[in-house]
Structure formats: structure tokens, C-alpha cells
């Protein structure tokens, strides 16, 4: 049976991840997101009561699911709708996840990971099989009950379908029969039971027919009925037990199952074979639902994580929205926050509002500490969250779908001028290029900064121009001013001719008094960097040799 909560038509298996997911996770700081998804925030009267310990399984699940992008609008909407249902019925998703977790951990205790051991040890096999069947049947009953209870409030296709599926695949008849089977063989596993002050014990009640064949051997045995009956336990040495035994022994044409030690053993072997035979019929049941429970735990963990992320947004006072899918050339958002930073620093950061329409290349320049990288990351994080079906930290967010998302960030500590580093950087770029396709988004953060500005600019120009012409969407934060300048003048020339270059430039906003707002605005690339600021600060306004005045 299928869970189908992450995808409409498939389970979580063999899903394609981002090509270099590791870099994306590192560059965008997604681990913080996973961690917080694993920690529920409990509110009381609108304020935070406490934050729960991290649920390692949710962390693990988010780390898998978030880097496996959805590839179509339908897929994204499918998850968004389920998340909406979960946010409206938080108790439901919590209970479902808890039940799935309980089943899996009980199953672990029964030796799930040791796999399906052979049938050499019949007794061990039968006992394990009975316990697992009982566990699964009980779990399914609970899950079915939960889904039935909340069914009327569901609006998502995914949850509605799951509720319907479980009612069909584990219908009442199945539930009844599996309960009967477990009861039939309970003489095998159940110990004595106290009831109304008496001790009861389960005894088998078996009827079969057979033929006497060559050598009078009993063959062609057909089981007619198997059952267990709860009988008042009596000490075999007690008088009353002896009387009952004597009375029974008067039954004509019969013998006691304990007549001789040999017969006692044969009866035991007979019971054993019956239980093994009966339980062999549950193999397909267990097979069918074992994958179901594994999937259910993982898939509900994702939605549980989504609810937790929403709680973290609420805690920091961040607005959220469910992103909409638009053309790949467009990207627009209102009050987009860098969510990872917000969670790490427990702040509600400055948001950005942009509408970048019909642009394939966004070049962001400007002074350090101006919020450039934050801006780039906020877009990257929102893109990844959107492509996981999650809500994002913005009042509105609209973007295309890019299953081939790449990040190429030069981290500060990497910035030493060192040809080995450049080699490595170019190698990384090369492997990105080899894996590009027509739905690619590349986020470059100070790429090629491991060499001189002149060399870096030349490399960046060649690569980015070629990628741009090939139709790859790029957002790049750069220090390489010659490169930015060159791109800008080319873009200007084309606009003079009335063409749209598809390139746009952003800068960190600076108030006339030099104060930074940490907002990004569309503008002519700043041709000066922090160095000039510094120069100006320390020595005085430097002369610019390109004919302009500062």
C-alpha cells in the first residue's frame, strides 16, 4: 500500500537530488533549517512556552527531502495543499507521526533491521511473525481511525486519497479477519491471563482430516479449523484437575496429548507446523505494509517538520506564504527574509521586495556588509523551500522551477590568492557546466575571487556570458568590478538599440548619508568597492581615471 503524501503517484525512493546537494546545504546554511524543523515550538497564550528537543528523524528526513526538488507546479501544489491541511489540523499530523514512529520502533525491537531471517528456527520465525502481524494490524486500525476522524476537514488531494486508500486496502473485513487470525493462533504466544480473579490459559482447538496411506502413515492432512480457547487454568496436580482429566479420558476413541512424552512432542510439532503454515499467509500482508510504515514515518516526518518550521516563523514574527510558480525568466517577492539567519540570530531580519521580470542574469555588486550575500541566500533558501513544497519566509514569492540548482560560493576562508584554489574552483564550475540543462539556476557568490581582479574578471566574463547566452539563469554577487562594468556597458549598448539584454543590476541601498539599509535595489552597478570607501575614509577621495568624478 502506498502513502503518496510526498508525491501524488510515487513513494520516496530513488528520487533525484540536486546535483551538488552538499554544496547547496553548506552555502545556504540549510542544516539550521533541518535542525529547527526537528524542534517543535510550543506556544501558550500566543507566547513561546518551550522548545522541544530535536527529533533526529525529522532532521534526517528534511535533509533528504529538501534537497530532492519537485519538478512541476502540480507537484509543488500537491505538497502545499497537504501542508495547509496539516497547519489546520496540527493534532492530526502529530498523532499520525507519533503512531508511525511507535510502530517503527516496536518493529525495530522485533528485529526489523536483522531482516527476514530464514525459517531454520521455526519457533522464532512464527513468534516474530505473529508479533509483527499484531503490531501492524493494531497500527493500521489506529491510523485508519485517525484518518477517518479528520477526513471531513481535509481539503488536500493527498490526505483525502490516503484516507480513502486505507479504508479500501485495510477495510473492515480485513481488519476483522486479521484479528481472528491473531486470536486463532494466540494459544501459541499468549501466556496466562488474569480475568475476574481467575487465571485463564489459551488452549488450541484444532480440527483436521487426513488419509491413511502406504504404511498407514497419516497423509493428505487438511486443516478444517484452528482456534484458541481461553480455559480456566488449573494446577495439574490439583484434585479438580485430576477429576476433569479422568472425565475427559472416558471420551471414546480418544487419547491425551500427553499420553507419552513422544506424543507430547509430536503434538507440539503439529501445533508448530500449524502456526507456521497459518502465519506464512501473513507474509504478503507484512510485505505490503512494511514499506507503508517506513514510508509513512518518513513522509509524515516531513509534514511534521513543515509544521515546526511554521512555528519558528511565528516565533520570530515572520510572515509566510505559499509560493506561486511563474515563468523561469521572472522572479518577484515581497518582504523576503533570509530565514536561516532569522532562526540563527532569532531576529526578524530586513526583507527585500523585488520584481525582476524577464531577466536571466542578475548581477549584484556593492560594498561589503551591505547585505548582498544575505540577499542571494534568501533567494536560494526560498527557492529550495519552494521546490520542496514548503512555505517561504515572505509575504509573497513567485519564481520558476529549477530542478538543476547550483550554488558556487567562495567562502571567506577560501579567498586566499592561490592558484590551487582557483584550479579547484574552476573544476567545480566545470562539473556544474557538465550538469546543466534547460531548467538551471546558478547562484554565484564572489566566484573567481581566488585570483586577481583582472584575471577573475576575464574568467567571469567568459563563463557568465557563455552561460547567459546558453539560457542559464544566474544570480551573481561579485566584487569583480571590471567584469560588472563590462557587462553593464554591453547591456546599455543593447538597450540603446532597443534590445532587452535580459540582464539587470542590483546594489545594496545606501542612503545619501552613507547609511546602509541592507536592502537591495535595482541600480547601476557601483563601480567602487569597500577599498575605495576605506581609502576615502583614511586618505581622502581618490581620483578616478575613467573621466568621472566621485
Amino acid at each position, binding site marked *: 500500500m502506498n502513502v503518496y503524501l510526498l508525491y501524488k503517484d510515487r513513494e520516496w525512493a530513488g528520487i533525484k537530488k540536486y546535483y551538488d546537494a552538499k554544496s547547496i546545504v553548506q552555502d545556504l546554511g540549510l542544516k539550521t533549517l533541518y535542525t529547527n524543523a526537528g524542534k517543535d515550538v510550543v506556544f501558550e497564550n500566543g507566547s513561546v512556552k518551550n522548545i522541544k528537543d530535536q527529533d533526529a528523524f525529522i532532521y534526517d528526513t528534511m535533509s533528504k527531502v529538501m534537497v530532492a526538488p519537485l519538478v512541476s507546479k502540480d507537484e509543488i501544489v500537491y505538497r502545499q495543499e497537504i501542508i495547509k491541511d496539516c497547519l489546520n489540523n496540527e493534532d492530526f499530523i502529530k498523532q499520525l507521526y507519533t503512531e508511525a514512529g511507535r510502530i517503527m520502533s516496536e518493529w525495530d525491537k522485533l528485529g526489523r533491521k536483522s531482516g527476514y531471517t530464514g525459517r531454520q528456527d521455526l519457533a522464532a520465525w512464527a513468534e516474530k511473525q505473529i508479533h509483527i502481524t499484531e503490531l501492524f494490524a493494531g497500527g493500521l486500525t489506529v491510523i485508519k481511525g485517525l484518518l477517518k476522524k479528520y477526513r471531513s476537514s481535509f481539503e488536500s488531494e493527498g490526505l483525502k486519497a490516503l484516507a480513502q486508500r486505507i479504508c479500501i486496502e485495510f477495510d473492515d473485513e480485513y481488519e476483522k479477519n486479521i484479528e481472528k487470525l491473531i486470536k486463532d493462533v494466540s494459544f501459541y504466544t499468549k501466556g496466562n491471563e488474569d480475568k475476574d480473579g481467575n487465571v485463564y490459559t489459551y488452549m488450541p482447538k484444532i*480440527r483436521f482430516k487426513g488419509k491413511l496411506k502406504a504404511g*498407514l502413515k497419516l497423509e493428505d492432512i487438511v486443516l*478444517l479449523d484452528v482456534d484458541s480457547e481461553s480455559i480456566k487454568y488449573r494446577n495439574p496436580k490439583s484434585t479438580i484437575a485430576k477429576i476433569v482429566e479422568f472425565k475427559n479420558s472416558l471420551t471414546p476413541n480418544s487419547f491425551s496429548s500427553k499420553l507419552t512424552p513422544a506424543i507430547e512432542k509430536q503434538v507440539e510439532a503439529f501445533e508448530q507446523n500449524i502456526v507456521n503454515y497459518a502465519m506464512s499467509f501473513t507474509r*504478503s500482508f507484512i510485505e505490503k505494509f512494511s514499506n507503508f510504515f517506513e514510508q509513512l514515518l518518513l513522509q509524515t516526518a516531513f509534514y511534521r517538520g513543515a509544521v515546526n518550521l511554521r512555528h519558528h516563523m511565528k516565533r520570530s514574527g515572520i510572515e509566510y506564504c505559499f509560493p506561486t510558480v511563474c515563468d523561469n525568466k521572472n522572479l518577484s517577492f515581497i518582504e523576503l527574509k533570509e530565514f536561516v539567519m532569522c532562526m540563527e540570530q532569532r531576529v526578524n531580519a530586513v526583507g527585500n521586495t523585488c520584481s525582476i521580470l524577464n531577466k536571466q542574469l542578475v548581477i549584484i555588486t556593492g560594498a561589503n556588509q551591505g547585505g548582498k550575500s544575505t540577499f542571494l541566500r534568501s533567494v536560494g533558501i526560498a527557492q529550495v523551500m519552494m521546490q520542496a513544497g514548503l512555505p517561504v519566509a515572505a509575504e509573497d514569492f513567485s519564481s520558476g522551477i529549477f530542478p538543476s540548482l547550483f550554488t558556487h560560493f567562495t567562502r571567506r576562508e577560501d579567498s586566499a590568492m592561490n592558484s590551487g584554489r582557483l584550479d579547484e574552483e574552476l573544476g567545480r564550475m566545470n562539473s556544474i557546466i557538465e550538469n546543466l540543462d534547460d531548467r538551471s539556476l546558478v547562484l554565484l557568490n564572489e566566484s573567481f575571487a581566488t585570483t586577481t581582479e583582472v584575471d577573475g574578471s576575464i574568467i567571469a566574463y567568459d563563463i557568465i556570458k557563455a552561460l547567459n547566452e546558453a539560457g542559464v539563469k544566474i544570480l551573481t554577487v561579485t566584487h569583480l568590478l571590471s567584469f560588472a562594468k563590462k557587462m553593464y556597458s554591453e547591456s546599455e549598448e543593447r538597450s540603446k538599440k532597443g534590445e532587452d539584454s535580459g540582464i539587470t543590476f542590483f546594489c545594496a541601498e545606501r542612503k545619501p548619508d552613507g547609511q546602509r539599509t541592507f536592502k537591495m535595489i535595482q541600480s547601476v552597478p557601483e563601480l567602487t568597492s569597500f577599498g575605495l570607501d576605506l581609502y576615502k575614509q583614511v586618505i581622502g577621495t581618490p581620483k578616478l581615471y575613467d573621466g568621472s568624478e566621485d
Partner: protein
Amino acid sequence: MGFESILDLKEPVKGLTEPAFFLDLNIDQILEKVTLGNRRVRAYYEYFPLDAECSEYRRHIYRDIRTKGLFEALTKYTDNYTEFRELERKKKETRGDIQKTVWNIYAIKLYTENLLTLYSDLKAASPESEGMTDLLNYLDKTVSSDDFKDKYERAEALSAELDALDVRVTYEKGRISVDVSDAADREKEEDDEDKPSYATYEEFLDFFDKDNEEEFVNPFAKVFELTGFEQEVVKVVSKRIPDWFKRAEKLYDDCSEFEDTCFLRLADELAFYLSFYVFETKMKEIGMEFCEPECDNQKNIEAEGLYDLALAIVNHDKGKIVVSNDFYYDEKDLFFVLTGPNQGGKTTFARSLGQLVYFSMMGLSVAAKKANVHWFSDILTHFSVEESVESGRGKLMEELVRLSPMMKHSRDNAFIVINELFTTAANYDAIIMGKNVLAHFIGKNCHGIYVTHLSELCDTDEHVAGLSAQLDENGIQNFKILRKKVAYEGCAENQIKKYKLDYASLSDRLKGIMNRA
């Protein structure tokens, strides 16, 4: 008329030793596939027929098996016979007296039914071979005797009555109650009120998995003796049908030793034909050709589409096909002298010739499209031991030591296969020795083939015909053997061309490899 052996053997085979030529001709490899490692069956293949009549006797039987659809009937017979022997074993070994009498019923039933079925199957097929006709007559006599009929009817009746009886057991509150019922009782039961909604528990279990193939394991089947549980059950049953038990005892007293050992031997010896038939059928399915050899001593020895069966098996596993050849011995020809390039298929051809003779002598099909083979008294082979690290003189010595008894004790009219003799001797010496060997066997009216690189041996005398392995237009071996006398020239150049390792081709290949990279 009595019946002795379907193989026309004077006495039953008792594990003979493998003839020396098996290894040289790779017949051991073929037989491994034919007998699937069964030593007892293999023994029949190691026993070479003593005369042409025996060979013919078998050939005709095998023809009946192939053409009259007797394979199924005979296989059924041998299988049932094995089962019958198992029942006899249990009957003899069991400790319980009641059990003995019941094993006996089933042993008689199986034995008599088996013979009756074989009889009717054989009769329906109307065999033509002497062997099968004799067998049919003998069976006719056996199954029509009054004694046989009496045994058969009594055993049938007793087993049918027991089969009709259901034993019903209820295990409840630690007690096991036993009841017996026949068809009439069963109808009554239909009305039982306390019954579950299903007729059998399996019907209930099928709800969960109707494709489950697991079957209930009968815990009593592990031993053939009655278990204590079964003994108690039998006690109740014997009280219910005492008459049946009396009759069973009577049948045991009347006949418990009834096996005619002639049928035992038949069941054993049939394995010879049946194993080969299975093998031949399998090989035909993968495209190999077989034929029944004509064995006309008046006509020349010849074959079309002859191939090395052992190589064909090996090649098939590797997905390669095997090259077949045609040949004929002229009226005056006694020996082939086969020369030609190395790796040209000389040894393979020589082996296929030896195999042809062997399988014809055994009365079986041969690996060719068409063949005529004479009767030979024996097959003698001499293959050089290639891996020998001994010095030249040592190797020559070793060859001569092996050759000597072969020459001295060979019967007249044997088939000789000699492969690369005297390679370490000087050519001058080797030619002389080779001619002597040829002359010796020709003198004994033997046929054979002599593989050598010395084409001079073709000139030994008028009874020798020269053959040679061929190269195609590119100088590559094509494994074809033609009647042609060719001097041996060496083939190092051909060999590197075959693998495209010469300068021109290798440079060309390398360009391709570089481009791809």
C-alpha cells in the same frame, strides 16, 4: 522366450574402468553432460560392445525410443520402479507388523500397475527392434499370468478402500479424538451446525494471500515408521475396520516376495538410452544436429557436418558456434594424415572422428548430419602430453613407452587416433618412425587418423590420404579440413592479423579509441 538385457550384455555391468581414449577424445566431458555425474549410468557407457550385433541391437532399440515416442513411457517406468524399490525398502525395514502388511499392499499395487502400464504403452507403440519386441513378449507373459492378476486385484481393492476413508481428528482441551468417515458420513456432516463459515482453514487463510504456495508441513512425514500419535490413530481405526486389516495380513502371507529381477535390471539399464535421449534432445534444442549412423561395411566410411561434440558444448556456453566438416575414406583409404597450421582445427577434427566411431559403436546417435561408419573392434588413441616439461629425449621416450603396448596388443580392425607424435625428434627420424607406425596399423587393417606437421607422411603408402586444415583468403584459420596435401609453413603472421595487432590495423584502432575518449 526369456528376457535378459536391454543392452545385450551377458552379465550386469559392475563399475568398469574408463577406457584410455575417453580423456583424449574428450568423451569424458561429453559423458559428464549426458549422465549428469551419475556414476551408475556412466558405467554403461564405459562398457564397449563386444560385437557388431550388440551394437546393432542397441541402435535399433534407440531408434524405437526416438521414433516411437517411447521415451515418456520408459521414463515413467524407471521412475515408478525407483519408487517401488523405496516402498520395498520401507516394507523390509519397518519394525511394525501391521505396517509391513500395508507397505506390501502399496508395493504390489505400484509394481503391478507399472508393468501393466509399460505393457500397454509398448504394445501401442508397436516397436520394431528385436530388443523391444522381446521385452514386449516377456511382459505379455508376465501380466497375463493368473498369479499376477490375483495380486493386482487384491492390492487394488485394499488400497481403494483405505483411500476412501477419511480420518477425522479433533484436538481440544488437550485431548485428541479420532473418527473415521466414508462418503455417506460426509454428507451428514454438511448439516453440522457448529461449523465455521469456511470448509477448510486454508479457505480462510486464502483471504490474506491466495497466491501463497506454502503448504502445511505434515509433522509425521519425517519418519516412515508410525509415530506414537499415528499409532494411537491406527488403534482407533483398526477397531472400526477390522476386516480390512485381516485381508491385508492375508495378502502379505500369500505374497511378499514377488519381484522379477529381470525388471529391476531393465529399469537400471534403460538409463543408458534415456540419459542419451535427454541429452540429444537438449542439444537439438540449441541447434546441434544429430543423426543415426548408417553402419554399412560395404560402403565407404564418411560423414557430413561432423563436429566435435565436446567443443560444441563448451562453445555454446561461451556463445560461439562450432565448425563442422565433411570427410570420406576412399575405398582404398585406411588412414588420414592431417597437416596444416596451428590452431587450425586439426586436433578437433581428429577428436570428432574418434567420437563418431565411439557413439556409433555404442548404438547411439552421432554428432553429424549424415554418417556411415564401419564396425571397429576397439578405439586406440595417442595424444602428446603438451605440458610435459621433460627434455626432448625424455618426452620421446615417454611417447614410445605409451605407443608400444598400443601397437603390440591392438586387435585387428581397430580405430586409431594419433595426435602429434614424435614432435621432439629430428624430422628425418620422425618421418621414418611415423611411417612405421602407420604401416603397422595399416597392416592390422585398422582405420584411423594421424595428425602431424610432417606432410611427408602422406606418402607412406597407397592407403594413406592427405588432409589439411585451411586458411581463408585473409590467411585466417577457418577450421575447415579438406582433402589436400599441403606443406606446413608456420602462421605467426596470420595469427597477429587475426587479432588485428599488426601495425596498420593497430594504428587504425588506436585512432578510434582516441576519438571515443
